[in-house]
């Protein structure tokens, strides 16, 4: 059986809730979220850093959960796709993706939405070029991106109109 691994105390917040766990030093954040916490909204689409499906926010910044060691997240605030809907209502970005057909198969979507969330938090009024740059680490194989760009634009517009900033 697997020999005793080096373990670390991991205290962080995940989707606003305190999470205290002992994790193996080699555990990836993506596996910690999916397997330890059961947050399977975060997807794994590649062997490391290629696709962006695993994008989560760490202290507000979009990061690849598949390239991040869980043990390195001590004291950090981690947010996943599961945190965005409030009382089971979609967030503005999620609504944009749903209404504009920014999601077809939906496998890239959690990562796309989190990348967009990170983008709109720092830049609430991005132009098309900035949206493209903000989502450049995320691959979608279904949509051709046209409707993803529209989805993010419409979410930004909605947030602007309603005077909410992320």
């Amino acid at each position: 059986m697997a020999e005793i691994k080096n373990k670390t105390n991991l205290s962080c917040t995940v989707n606003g809730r305190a999470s205290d766990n002992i994790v193996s030093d080699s555990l990836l954040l993506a596996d910690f979220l999916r397997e330890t916490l059961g947050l399977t909204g975060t997807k794994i689409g590649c062997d490391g850093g290629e696709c962006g499906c695993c994008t989560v926010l760490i202290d507000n910044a979009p990061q690849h959960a598949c390239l991040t060691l869980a043990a390195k997240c001590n004291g950090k605030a981690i947010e996943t796709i599961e945190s965005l809907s409030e009382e089971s209502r979609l967030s503005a970005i999620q609504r944009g993706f749903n209404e504009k057909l920014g999601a077809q198969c939906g496998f890239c979507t959690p990562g796309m939405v989190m990348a967009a969330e990170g983008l709109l938090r720092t830049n609430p009024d991005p132009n098309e070029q900035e949206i493209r740059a903000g989502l450049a680490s995320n691959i979608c194989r279904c949509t051709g991106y046209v409707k993803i760009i529209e989805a993010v634009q419409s979410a930004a517009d909605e947030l602007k109109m309603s005077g909410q900033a992320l």
Partner: protein
Amino acid sequence: MNEIKPSQSIGIRKSLVDGPEKVSGKAKYSSDFMPIGCLVGRIFRSPVAHAEIIKVDIEEAKLLPGVKAVITGDETDEPFGILPIARFEFPLARDKVRYRGEPVACVAAIDVETAQKAIDLIKFKYKELPAYFTSKDAMAEGTVDLHDHRPRNIEREVDFELGEVDKGLSDADFVIEESFNCAEVCQVQSEPHAAIAEYDAEREFITVRASTQVPYYDHLMLAKVLKMDEAQIRVVKPFVGGGFGCRTESLNVTLICALVARAANGTVRLTVSREETFITHRGRPETDIEMQIGVKKDGTITAVDYTAIQRGGAYSGYGVVTILYSGGLLFGLYDLTAVRYKGFRVLTNTPPPGAMRGHGITNVRYAFEALLDKIATKLKIDAIEIRRKNLLKGPNYETLNEMFINSYGLPECLDWVEKESQWNQRKGKMGKFRGLGVACGHYISGASKPVNWTGEPHATVHLKLDWDGSITILTGAPEIGQGSSTMTTQCAAEVLGLDMSRFQIITSDSKLTPKDNGSYSSRVTYMVGNATIDAATNLKKILIEAAARKLDANPDDVECLGEYYSAGSQDEGLTFNEVVTAALEGTGTITVKGNFDTLPESWGTKKYRGGAVSGSMAYAYAAQVVEVSVDPDTAEIKVERVWAAQDVGKALNPLSVEGQIEGSVWMGMGQAISEGTLYHNGLGITNSMLDYRVPTIIESPPIEVGIIESIDPNGPFGAKEAGETSLIAFIPALTNAVADAIGVRPTDLPVTPDKLMELMEKNTNNAKSVT
């Protein structure tokens, strides 16, 4: 109550019925199921491309604590494969391995680390054989056969001549020929392959969830390789992260997962890596094409003569169908009177390709459209005009290979792209290093003969109406992201005049939903859409009869307004819920079904062996104009803009249709300019999403979509294919645009900067040597 109207769902932009689950992260894909106690599977793969297996020693691996099962090719001697005539692949290799990365053994263990340790303990002894990585090498004299029953490594040879080709060529004023090479490409769908199998030893029953486009074919193949009764198997398709054809046949991943779960007497989750997903492959084969087209001075085509050679990988898969499509589907786009085709499907020591989006015809269409463009330039005929010159004399047209064309919106597609791209004003006046190109394509709306002929209808849909007034659609049609569940709901809602929110849909669970052949060859909208309309019509009849009883009226006088039923003469009608109560009286919950079958005249030709392949109830058409710029220093191509018109019969959901067309164009762009697999001695060296060069959001062009509606007489509300045709048209439209931009014509795909630079340099040198 005069204002009550039936709800309309067809032709309206609808977001996906399963969209909220996807955008909220609630949607569960195969690898998201992690029941407590679930084991992890891991595959040991062949390190060599071609070898005789001497021994797979798993003794030490088995003894490792935490390992619950290790299986090899000894686990099953039943081969699998999509085509009944070509089943010679085993889930785990027996006797021989035939490509690098072929599964040899599988471990089920308590966690990934343990599974990997066990894999490292497996000792694989083999004797290497000569391996062939190109079609040419595999077909050469004196090669070792990959399979004893396929001499010279030819999987299938197709040879037909329809019409008088030699006469056509000699009657031509002008004959032009060219060779093309199209690199092998892969779907690179977002979700890597995954399966989870739960074996219940007590009941000898297995439940398998898998990322698949064809749960029914999986069911058949699971029964075969497990040697279990079909009734002891339940196949469920969870959410699936894209397909594009990579999952239109049973994959070894699914079968191995079930085999190892049974061996371990437990539940095993087998999620393979991206690299393994590339190795599992089933993409589009590398294709070499030599084509000759004869034309009259006015651009009328007199004959086409061509050969296509496909590097088919180590096993057949869909190979025979692919090489047949490459011939049969040349027809149906233009009026062709003489065609000779020779196709070779070759077995090589590379991973097996499959039925990728635009199956079988994409590369041949590329060659044809590129050549047609070249002819137009030579004859100084406008590139759109030469296509108009050769249009079918249809609809109501029968091709040489007996395809029936009942709807044909290609002329309107050409008109649309011509106008929207301002073709006439801009073509030829784009300035240096900028160009416009046009091309067309078409594709089937489902194969009219299924690969497994059982005598059942092509599609069956159930509708369950219960006391609460909700209707559940039960369909085996696999929703894989293409929007089939939304389409089905729209069809049912439209017929019954109800809002879509009255419906729930349950898909692809073999113990609940009626069998369906699967999501491939663009069959679902046409076939399952029609079956849904049939089911909803049957339900409506029951409801009208119930309303008539209640209202004491003649059923013919009852009008269904969706939420309200009224009898002509009476003031007071019935609400939908009252009608439901009336309908359930004495019978209880109602389940109705609807079917769809293809018409015999769509079953293809008997003029040559395999002519049934390419027969379809309807064909979708596309014309595309692509605008490019080429960087003179780096030879990098930038797609500036795309105008994509597609005749989809009727856009049931214009939003979805746009999404399909945009996705197709973009995937075509990948194949055209950057994508291609590479192997070094059989080792895949492009097995990551970075090395394989999928375009990103940065390179993605603006795409204008033109929806053309020709209303197919047999399609559901007139609809036909929407998700493949535009991919086919993009590739030649791009290379034609490149030719317009720089005056040299690329022939080999993908048109990468290094290849294009070489062409440009050659061209300048030639120009210099002329002056």
